[in-house]
């Protein structure tokens, strides 16, 4: 079974490699599983997901990340993406002048073997069926990627890309931030539709709200660069009720 294994990982900003943000995090995600990572702001959640995806601002100072038992740390970000890792961005970039249809098409094309051409008719058919599923207007695809999008539109655009690229593992970075309840439901439905034994999720969220719609198999609490507590979905409810101070106090007394 495919797995994404994070082993005793230390991550720092490339500019300040001696100041780790993620400090010895270990976690294994298998396909078929949804892992929620919760924790207060500034605890390293976003850093973790960007480092796994290979963002150049971050450096992994020790530890390893393995996809199906093989380290991905020497791979370029695009190689990691093509190997099956998808990052749903908290703040997706705008790409002026490049339509969603053309961008996704280029991404799909990049996954084909050299010399193999994309079947345009089949591509659009698939794109439109995914859009229908996510309740996205057809006109959306002729807009430039994320340019002038509302928060909800940006997140829907991320989910649409994820649906089209069918990754093995999705790292979802605060996908719920800035979403109203309707948008949240649509995003959650998009993830739920992909859920199955070929797809694993690391769901980073600050609030328990999203977990009402995407029910996790595991919940981990991240604090000061490490996972300090793990449990099932009930842990999220407990956090909601008691707040993160509860964890801090528990750690202080331990």
């Amino acid at each position: 079974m495919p797995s994404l294994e994070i082993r005793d990982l230390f991550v720092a900003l490339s500019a300040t490699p001696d100041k780790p943000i993620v400090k010895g995090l270990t976690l294994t995600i298998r396909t078929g599983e949804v892992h929620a990572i919760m924790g207060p702001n500034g605890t390293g959640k976003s850093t973790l997901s960007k480092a796994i995806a290979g963002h150049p601002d971050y450096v992994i100072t020790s530890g390893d990340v393995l996809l199906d038992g093989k380290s991905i740390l020497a791979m370029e970000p695009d190689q990691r993406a093509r190997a099956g890792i998808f990052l749903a961005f908290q703040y997706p970039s705008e790409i002026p002048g490049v339509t969603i249809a053309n961008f996704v098409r280029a991404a799909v094309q990049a996954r084909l073997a050299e010399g193999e051409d994309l079947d345009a008719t089949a591509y659009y058919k698939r794109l439109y069926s995914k859009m229908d599923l996510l309740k996205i207007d057809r006109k959306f695809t002729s807009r430039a990627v994320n340019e002038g999008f509302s928060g909800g539109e940006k997140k829907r655009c991320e989910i649409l890309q994820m649906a089209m690229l069918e990754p093995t593992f999705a790292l979802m970075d605060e996908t719920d931030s800035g979403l109203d309840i309707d948008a949240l439901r649509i995003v959650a439905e998009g993830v739920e539709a992909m859920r199955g034994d070929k797809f694993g999720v690391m769901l980073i969220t600050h609030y328990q709200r999203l977990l009402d719609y995407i029910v996790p198999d595991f919940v981990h609490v991240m604090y000061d660069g490490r996972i300090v507590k793990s449990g099932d979905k009930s842990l999220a409810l407990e956090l909601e009720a008691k707040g993160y101070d509860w964890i801090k106090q528990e750690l202080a007394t331990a």
Partner: protein
Amino acid sequence: MKPPSDLLAPPDALLESEADTSVAMENPTVGIDQTAGDFTYDVKYAYDAGSGLSEDTIRYISDVKKEASWILDFRLKAYQTFLSKPMPTHWATKDLENIDFNKIRYYLSQGTKPKRTWDEVPDDIKKTFERLGIPEQERKFLAGVEAQFDSEAAYSNVKDIVAKQGVIFCNSTEALREHPELFRKWFGKVIPTGDNKFSALNSAVFSGGSFIYVPKGVKVAMPLQAYFRINAENFGQFERTLIIADEGAEVTYMEGCTAPKFSTSTLHSAVVELVALKGAKIQYITVQNWANNVFNLVTKRAIAMEDAEVKWIDCNIGSRLTMKYPGVILKGKRARGEVISIALANDGQHQVTGAKMVHAADDTTSVIVAKSISVGQGRSTYRGVVHIPKHLKGCKNNTECDALLINSNSRTDTYPAIVVRGDTHAVQHEASVSKISEDMIFYMQQRGLTEAQAMSLAVNGFVNDLVRQFPMEYSVELKRLIDLEMEGSVG
């Protein structure tokens, strides 16, 4: 019909000293894949004016072409003008000083009569154009083609359906021989010999280029195309193009150009004059992909009479140094001029592009949209002139300059000179500089695109709104060229 040429010299605002920046241009490093045009076949030339420029060179050219005496006089006079004019390095780049006029070969040809079928074109020249895909394009979507190889057209043909409408499409040598009245009436009238040093040089040694006449009311449905090929080392190409659209006529002309990458520099210095008579429409499209050692110093200007429209679409991808500002003299009421300019400057390249819009009648409109991309140590410069004098009413200009910088050592400059007098005009100028951010590239890489693919897509997005205005075949070509350039720019 003397155009206000004094207005067309760069005004003081353009006289920026560039002394401090010329150093980077002295040793251009070229690491770009320009495989499409980078090949050369050994060709035997029947006529060769040798290296260097003198009155004898000019007499030789005129003699080979069996020209009328007025043309030789015109050339010799122009040569004196060329000698008397200083290199414009007081405002333009000092890289111009690296042109050695004594080393250039000013005329090379296998003869002055172009063939009418590809079968008649000598094999060594034909295979060049076949490799560049010209005969294939002609079959697919062109009304006529002229293929110039060094100094003369090797092939020139216009489809019967267009010829029957009375459209003339030939090269300047033929036009001077067969249509002297039409040619002489406008030749050198839109761009006088003394407009600048290089228009004078062209006037002295010009050879080849297109002559087009579209009769009254004739609308040429498919584009006419010229392809300019430099094959010989140390060669200077000086084509002379004159396009006349008579009243109510419409024509689209496209030109492409390539040269192999020699170790020594090459000079391309064309003069292009367009005449749009009352109600006529001319669209002129250029995709310039010279090798990165070509000095590309071209003067292009149109005159637009009452209700006429002229649109220049000018794409500059190649060359070592390009200086080109297509212009429109808006001579008749309600005339409209437009320049769409795309420039891409890679390592060792300096693209100096822009536009000149001279309003000379009421209710005239001009539009300039210029987008430049600077990659690596590439440098792009926009120079634009908009002139609206006091006695006119209701003129409009809209200028938009957008620059994209790919790397932190890329450079862009904008020198707009807008002189507007009078109070019934509407003028708008917008400029922006943007950079492709690391985050944008990472975002695209995270979707599986390589860094080069990501760059390429971002650059294509930047010029997308302009490229959409191109005929399809050219937009595909431009996209391919951008992809090639960006591939060499990363890693």
